[in-house]
């Protein structure tokens, strides 16, 4: 490249071009504006809630805002964490099944069946969790309380309805399975075939091949898939609101009838009847939820974006 080269030829800019590219640019910028607006409006409406006088706000019941939101944050993290513990191993199993075990012609169809789970609306999951799953798992909870009661998690008395945080977490786990599976499946399929064949040629069994070739290659994908699943589980509202019978406590007991609620479920249950400053208090809790999910998703995206080929949105 020489500095004396002829000036760069620029395409002729017609009015139509300017208008069209301007519109496209505006639309792109609008997305950033919307995201900024979401944060700004939550802050504007939420700050009065954080500084609200506890005596004048019925929702706070005389305590300050942080004492009110503490158990909710705990419940949100606890239920999402439980869901993640249940979902990740199964999701990895499903992804391996579809990518390396199932007969090749069947694999696409099986993947589609798992995607069907993602298509079911959350309110239907809530209805099913409250009416079917909670009833179904209650005997198991009674058994756990009787036989494994010495473990703090299963210290009874077992809930008579089965509507505990463990049930809510199971529903959440089912709901986040598809996204974790989709991302794991995509990375597992990207494993270089030569690595796999080399392992098999050295006499490895199928599991040994997966252990030395597929899993190390897919570790970043598994982590980011789990993080995206965590983001979903943290923000999920209906499944928790409809399954859980909640009270504002902090407890690690997962099968009793007193359970911590989650931020999202608490908003859904309290918002329709809220008035005055209570609305601001609820929006402030929403702001905290927004911050938590933003952090989790940003970390997940950062890991995903280091490998450009896949993303959870498609």
């Amino acid at each position, binding site marked *: 490249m020489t500095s004396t080269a002829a000036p760069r030829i620029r395409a002729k800019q017609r009015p139509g071009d300017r208008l069209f590219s301007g519109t496209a640019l505006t639309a792109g910028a609008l997305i950033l504006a919307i995201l900024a*607006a979401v944060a700004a409006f939550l802050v504007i409406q939420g700050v009065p809630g954080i500084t609200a006088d506890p005596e004048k706000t019925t929702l706070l019941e005389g305590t300050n805002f942080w004492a009110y939101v503490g158990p909710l944050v705990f419940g949100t993290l606890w239920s999402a964490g439980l869901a993640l513990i249940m979902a990740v191993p199964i999701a990895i199993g499903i992804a391996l099944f579809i990518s390396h075990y199932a007969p090749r012609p069947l694999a696409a169809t099986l993947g589609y069946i798992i995607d069907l789970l993602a298509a079911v609306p959350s309110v239907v999951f809530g209805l099913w969790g409250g009416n079917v799953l909670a009833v179904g798992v209650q005997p198991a909870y009674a058994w756990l309380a009787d036989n494994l009661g010495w473990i703090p998690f299963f210290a009874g008395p077992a809930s008579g309805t089965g509507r505990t945080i463990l049930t809510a977490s199971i529903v959440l786990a089912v709901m986040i399975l598809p996204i974790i599976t989709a991302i794991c499946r995509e990375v597992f399929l990207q494993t270089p075939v030569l690595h796999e064949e080399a392992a098999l040629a050295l006499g490895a069994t199928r599991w040994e091949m997966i252990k030395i070739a597929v899993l190390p290659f897919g570790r970043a994908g598994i982590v980011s898939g789990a993080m995206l699943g965590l983001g979903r589980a943290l923000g999920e509202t209906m499944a928790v609101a409809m399954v859980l019978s909640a009270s504002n406590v902090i407890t690690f007991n997962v099968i009793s009838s007193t359970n911590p609620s989650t931020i999202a479920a608490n908003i859904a249950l309290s918002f329709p009847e809220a008035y005055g400053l209570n609305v601001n208090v609820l929006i402030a809790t929403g702001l905290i939820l927004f911050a938590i999910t933003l952090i989790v998703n940003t970390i997940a995206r950062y890991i995903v974006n280091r490998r450009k080929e896949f993303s959870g949105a498609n």
Partner: protein
Amino acid sequence: MTTTTPARPIENAYAAGQLPRWAPLLILISSLATFVIIFLFIQAGQPEGEFNVVGAVFFGVVLYGIVLVTVSRLVEGHRRATDRLVTTLVTLAFVIALLPLISLLYTVVINGAARFDLDFFTLSLRNVVGEGGGAAHAIIGTLQMTLAATIISVPIGLMTSIYLVEYGRGRLAQAITFFVDVMTGIPSIVAGLFAYSLIVIFFGPGVRVGIAGAVALSVLMIPVVVRSSEEMLRLVPNELREAAFALGVPKWLTILKVVLPTSIAGITTGVMLSIARVIGETAPLLVAAGFTNNFNYSLFSDRMQSLPVFVYSSYISQGTDAQAYIDRAWAGALTLILIVMALNLLARIIAKIFAPKTGR
């Protein structure tokens, strides 16, 4: 592949120490049968015991795993045994994931059929206490709000993806890509709170209107539209654009007349999938649009019911005749699932028929 048979005088050295192909199946059937018999005896021993299908299958599968691994370890060695164990676990993971799906679809269809009648699609819940009534007002609300959300989201989403693919270079494009990804992770209820905070500026505090629900849905819908359209636009071969440029066609006309028509099927598919995703959203509509028992055809005044919120409110506030409310909730859930599945199916059919020919 042939396995050795005992009749042959010389053993196949390569197949020695290997379980025959039918062995896992045989072990599975026999271990399931064992526990079916055991549970039949338990049932016979109790006065009014019910046959425990779940227990029989569960313990049968556990026994299958133990026997298979033990036999395999004795015959084939521990490496093969581990391999078989993992195969069993991986298959089991898939089956476990199927259980909730089957159970959910089964219960929704069985329970939803009770009220899946003409009344449900023609009447509202106005002045209904107990039995009767329908969800027509909710269906109309859902259609209106989803349509409004689509009208807001598709132009913004499509133009953004055009910017990202055709114009975007450098920092801004990177930032938009990143934040679109972040936006897909916004909890739906936060989108609802945002729409509510926005709308109280125009309508005054405590108000719930349909347009707020539509705004909330748009926040959730835009990133999905951007991602899917972007993907489709990138599939359009560069040769087509270059050919158009070579003929002296302006860039904006190239995009409008060459790039978009080539990818329109994929974009339509993406839009339909995004509609399918937001049509089942409950939380944002509950917060932003509220609920009502009446017909409301105006997006800009009064509360507006939607199908998911209808299901939720029927379930959460059951009246004196609880069964009638539950039946309506299930029928609403069935309608919702049918709508979502139909949209998904249609989207996939469109994608299949009109898929762009990329020459691969």
